[in-house]
């Protein structure tokens, strides 16, 4: 034993060679590489700052020009211009969430706790297919297929449930209304809410579930007692991420709605408020001068709103670090 220690001691390099082994040449490689990596990370922060900065610079003319001058040129003051569209954005997203959230939670539970194990990942892939469809195709489908198909339902709602403020008014004859846009939005945000909820449901401690089952709970009671309480924060933040998607989604709304600058609760008429994103998409290609600045200012407003919603969702979700919208 003593001999072994001695021999090791002989082999063990003294501090001096260690220093020389880290020759300057090697250190340069390490330093360059870590600088590159850190630099890339910083570039991302710079890009985000640039997004905010350049939008602000281009939006300023629309925000600072005096209301009288804007009025004279036919654009209207910025805040009164954007208010109907901000309302339309919120209102369309609200209906989309109302339809998408219960369905997505149901699907997520179905895949995580009801479907046979062998099928589960395949079923998840089918739902992910919905997320892969480009938004412009959803828009085309919404306006050419969904709107005419759903129009009888709208007329029925308008006639029989017209006493509810949402369904009142003169129903649109073409089905091009806010509800159609919201249905398309709901289909588009469904996969993201589903996949995030599924991840959270699968993280429920198995011991909790088995304890509930061992006490004689049915499967539904087990879900209510162990899965849903555990997943509450995850559900809230996935709904907020879905909301962020819905607020910023452009093409589906831009193709379905013709849009009018009105603030109304009615969702079946042909006079529906447009969303901010859609009004930018519809007007930007032909815009010039101050109009461009006004639309960019609208984009800045949308950026700030979605930033707040997404940051809130991320803060709630930070306790589940493993997943995000990008995977």
């Amino acid at each position, binding site marked *: 034993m003593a001999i072994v220690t001695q021999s090791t001691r002989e082999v063990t390099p003294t501090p001096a060679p260690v220093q020389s082994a880290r020759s300057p040449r*090697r250190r340069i*490689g*390490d330093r360059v*590489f*870590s600088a*590159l*990596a850190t630099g*890339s*990370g910083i570039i*991302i*922060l710079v*890009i*985000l700052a640039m*997004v905010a900065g*350049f*939008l602000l*610079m*281009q939006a300023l003319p629309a925000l600072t020009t005096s209301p009288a001058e804007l009025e004279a040129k036919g654009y209207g003051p910025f805040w009164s211009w954007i208010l109907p569209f901000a309302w339309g954005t919120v209102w369309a997203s609200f209906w989309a969430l109302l339809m998408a959230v*219960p*369905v*997505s*939670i*149901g699907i997520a539970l*179905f895949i995580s706790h*009801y479907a046979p194990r062998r099928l589960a990942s395949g079923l998840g892939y*089918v739902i992910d297919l*919905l997320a*892969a*469809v*480009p*938004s*412009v*195709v959803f*828009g*085309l489908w919404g306006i050419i297929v969904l709107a005419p198909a759903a129009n009888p339902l709208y007329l029925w709602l308008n006639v029989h449930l017209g006493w509810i403020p949402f369904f009142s008014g003169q129903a649109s004859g073409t089905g091009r209304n806010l509800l159609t846009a919201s249905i398309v939005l709901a*289909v588009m945000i*469904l996969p993201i809410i*589903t996949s995030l909820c599924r991840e959270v449901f699968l993280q429920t401690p198995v011991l909790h579930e088995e304890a509930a089952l061992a006490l004689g709970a*049915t*499967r*539904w009671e087990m879900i209510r007692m162990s899965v849903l309480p555990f997943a509450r924060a995850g559900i809230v933040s996935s709904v907020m991420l879905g909301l962020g*998607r819905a607020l*910023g989604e*452009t*093409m589906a709304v831009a193709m379905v709605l013709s849009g009018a600058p009105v603030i109304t609760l009615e969702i079946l008429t042909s006079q529906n408020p447009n969303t901010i*994103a859609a009004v*930018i*998409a519809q007007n930007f*290609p032909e815009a*010039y001068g101050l109009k461009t600045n006004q639309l*960019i200012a609208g984009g800045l407003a*949308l950026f700030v709103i*979605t*930033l707040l919603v*997404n*940051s809130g969702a*991320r803060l709630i979700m930070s306790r589940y670090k493993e997943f995000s*919208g*990008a*995977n």
Partner: protein
Amino acid sequence: MSTLTATRANPLTAGQLPSFAPWVALAASVVTGGIVDSLGFGGFDLPTTVFLGAVIFLPVIYLLTRMVEGRRAAADRLATALMAGAFLLALLPLVSLLWETVSNGLPRFDGTFFSWSMRNVIGAGGGAIHALYGTLIITGIATLIAVPIGLMTAIYLVEYGRGALANAITFFVDVMTGIPSIVAGLFAYALMAIVFGPGTVNGFAGAMALSVLMIPIVVRATEELLRIVPNELREASYALGVPKWRTILAVVLPTSLSGIVSGVILAIARIIGETAPLMIAAGFTNSINTNPFANPMMTLPVFVYDQYAHPGIEREFYNERAWAGAMTLIVLVMVLNLIGRFIAKRFAPKSGR
């Protein structure tokens, strides 16, 4: 409940519905729905029948189970039916969308579509070759910008990142995934307007908008893969005296290469269908333009929108081209998805997960 259980012979299955009962109830409900539909709602059609059948089935299965098995089992069956129903409900738009796209897109999914541009085309004929070129060029440039930045950021986060900067980058990468695509387009437009003067619209601006959207996707996908590379591999490499940067290049990256490649392909599939940012930053044109640094450049999603939104007098030709473009897009996205998933599965390292 107790009276029924008393009459059963087998105590184990007593008080339970036989396993075929829900299916029988479902079939009966759909048939009833069909009868109600043809009598009361003006003629038989499949969607209404299925809808009515589902509406009838829910109370039927609840009451049936409640009578035989009790309240708690009834709630359980109702929940099961609702969740399976939610899944089927979500399949409805998917199937309808794929069916309509393929059936409407096939008539113009032909040679002319892939060899003609829209230059001087009014009415029939014409194609999307200019848009295909544009999509390939713009997506290619966006990938060239986004992959190095995304990959190096992921390496920073996994191998170097500690403290406030790493936390900030992680947080803002997450926030970046939520940027509305149209805002990315406005950013590229604003950047070009400030640097080259207002109204500068070209392929490179479009590529910049797309790379803003693509970077966070690449970072998240890559970061996740680098984290599952076993630490033993890194330590073995350090023990041999290999410096850190060569360890990353020669050990960490090759181990996770298949996953990174598939992540990049999936990221491309995600951005290739983006419409709004390209409308704003890359513009519209009917001609082939292969120079990304001057003049507007058409892309496939914008082509679809343009054909639908700005039709000529004979609307049907424009709609046909829009559907054919949509079908091309879906085929592209699906093929990219399949390749990505295939690579991830086929070449995955054995030690992973």
